[in-house]
């Protein structure tokens, strides 16, 4: 039954499009077409197989040859996961400032918006999955490598607070290179802020499912991404604190090939499960349903 829901050609959950058309934002014509991100054909970064982009889209951007899960933009993820109607976005117009006057930051922010069509690295809101209401936060690697600055921290904290107030379950889809250097200490403090908000949510008995997608590292991995009641990852997703290159450079340690993959983390007890993208929506639906039965949340 869930499979049918998937194969149906679904549009993305509704996001008010006018928010993309304001001053300083890319105009309609220049926005990258998300339907065919890299032209007609697409080459898998892992196995090199070339496939039709349209076919790839149908396959939820999972390589038909090797099963490699390609990275998704936040809006694509919302479209694949939430029910088609009824998504209401929170804080859609929140934008980053340049509090430290960091060299090159302001220009880079503008460029990232052009590239991704997003205002920052997370989209938050409320919607339903298989009919069950849920607050979601979905990170996007294509905006500034999903880095967490003040906006990401604030939007996620607000989403957690809304879930706490409304007594709704919470799902955060993480993908991030870590804290955003250009906001320095303010970025670091977002780790404490989001984790403290999760503590309150937790004390109240709220269900938090953390979905870890490729890659999730640094400040995001060491805060809300690991704090789920249930931690799920997509196959092959890199998930860890210090990146491979950092480790190899600082302590010159030889690292295993599967280092920090979802499977590595599952084997070391850091995850509850690794779930294929095609089964993610139904798994989330099941988990939500199991926690809804008791009443309360």
């Amino acid at each position, binding site marked *: 039954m869930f499979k049918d829901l998937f194969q149906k050609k679904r549009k993305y959950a509704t996001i008010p499009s*006018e*928010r993309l058309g*304001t*001053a*300083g934002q890319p105009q309609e014509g220049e926005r990258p077409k998300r339907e065919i991100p890299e032209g007609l054909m697409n080459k898998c970064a892992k196995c090199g197989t070339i496939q039709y982009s349209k076919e790839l889209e149908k396959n939820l951007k999972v390589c038909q040859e090797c099963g490699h899960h390609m990275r998704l933009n936040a809006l694509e993820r919302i479209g694949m996961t939430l029910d088609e109607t009824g998504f209401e976005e929170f804080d859609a*117009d*929140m*934008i*980053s*400032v340049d*509090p*430290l006057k*960091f*060299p090159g930051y302001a220009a880079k922010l503008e460029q990232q918006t052009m590239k991704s069509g997003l205002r920052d690295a997370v989209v938050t809101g409320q919607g339903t999955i298989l009919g069950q209401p849920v607050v979601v936060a979905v990170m996007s690697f294509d905006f500034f490598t999903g880095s967490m600055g*003040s*906006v990401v*921290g*604030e939007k996620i*904290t607000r989403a957690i607070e809304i879930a706490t107030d409304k007594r709704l379950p919470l799902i955060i889809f993480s993908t991030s290179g870590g*804290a955003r*250097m250009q*906001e*320095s*200490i*303010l*970025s*670091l*403090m*977002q*780790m*404490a*802020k989001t*984790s*403290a*908000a*999760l*503590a*309150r949510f*937790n004390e109240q008995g709220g269900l938090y499912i953390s979905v870890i997608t490729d890659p999730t590292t*640094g*400040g995001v*991995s*060491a*805060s*809300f991404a*690991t*704090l789920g009641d249930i931690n799920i990852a997509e196959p092959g997703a890199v998930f*860890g*604190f*210090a990146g491979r290159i*950092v*480790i190899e450079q*600082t*302590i010159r*340690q030889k*690292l*295993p090939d599967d280092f920090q993959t979802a499977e590595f983390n599952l084997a*070391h*007890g*850091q995850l509850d499960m690794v779930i294929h993208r095609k089964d993610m929506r139904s798994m989330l639906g099941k988990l939500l349903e199991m926690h809804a039965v008791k009443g309360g949340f």
Partner: protein
Amino acid sequence: MSGVLPFETPLAEMRKKIEELKQFGQEKGIDFTDEIARLEERYSRLEEEIYSSISPSQKMHLARHQQRPTSLDLIQLIFTDFIELHGDRLYGDDLAVVGGLAKLNGVPVTVLGQQRGKDTKDNIARFFGSPHPEGFRKALRLMQQANKFNRPIITFIDTKGAYPGNTAEERGQSEAIARNLREMSTFGVPIVCVVIGEGGSGGALAMAVGNRVLMLEHAIYSVISPNGAASILWKDASKADQAAEAMKITAQDLLEMEVIEEIIPEPKGGAHRNYEETASAIQSALIRHLTELSAMDACELKEDRYRKFRKIGEFDFAKNEQQDAIM
């Protein structure tokens, strides 16, 4: 004078000249009193000039000074009756984190610190002060104990960051840090944290979710080490000094951004010049803050800590024409 930093070289050279002159006078029986007095005066002026304008990158070198007092040095001087407790009860005992019971001004407290080594051998045993998950979990265990027995928690922050390595990753470095961040926000006892040297990234923060966060005058606290930032931003780790300037990592910057509550003054030239003076300044700040916090009950302390971190972050809202029309 050992442990001279590059920016202190003029001072060291002048000091050497004064000593030479003194010795020469003694040997030859010539009276250089006036000359020496003049030189001493010039020395103090230069000292004032150099130490009143220490740049962020110079502070970075001061904060990492090999002779800078470590957590254990300060614990011995600030507290009495320190009893060290060990282990996380899950895997091992990480020597990069020390902790235990102690008395501050006669009152029992739980004290924790990140511990650099005093020499190479000690540094290897303590992983250069970079904790593994078991270090953070030991800290958590001792903090939970403090919460149970209603003791204030004091932490000293001094780490380049959480240990980056395969073993740390296998045992859940991210989870250990994240859990501390979450749990520290729930304790009903006062938590005061002092950055005494380098506050490096998540590894520092994992023990620094306090009602009050204080910093020694020349301590630094940052999201990533300036070396790391330089290699990522400009693909050149040698630009660490430039990154240190851009990243606003000094105690003075953090006070201005309202991330910390207070700067604790250091002896002239830095904490390593006088351990006792440094310890005494920290001690009086700790007593003052804990006295203030003791007026709050468990709920208020929790709320106070939540608010402290909740308000950090700067952002804006895009001008939305549609919204303006509605308004």
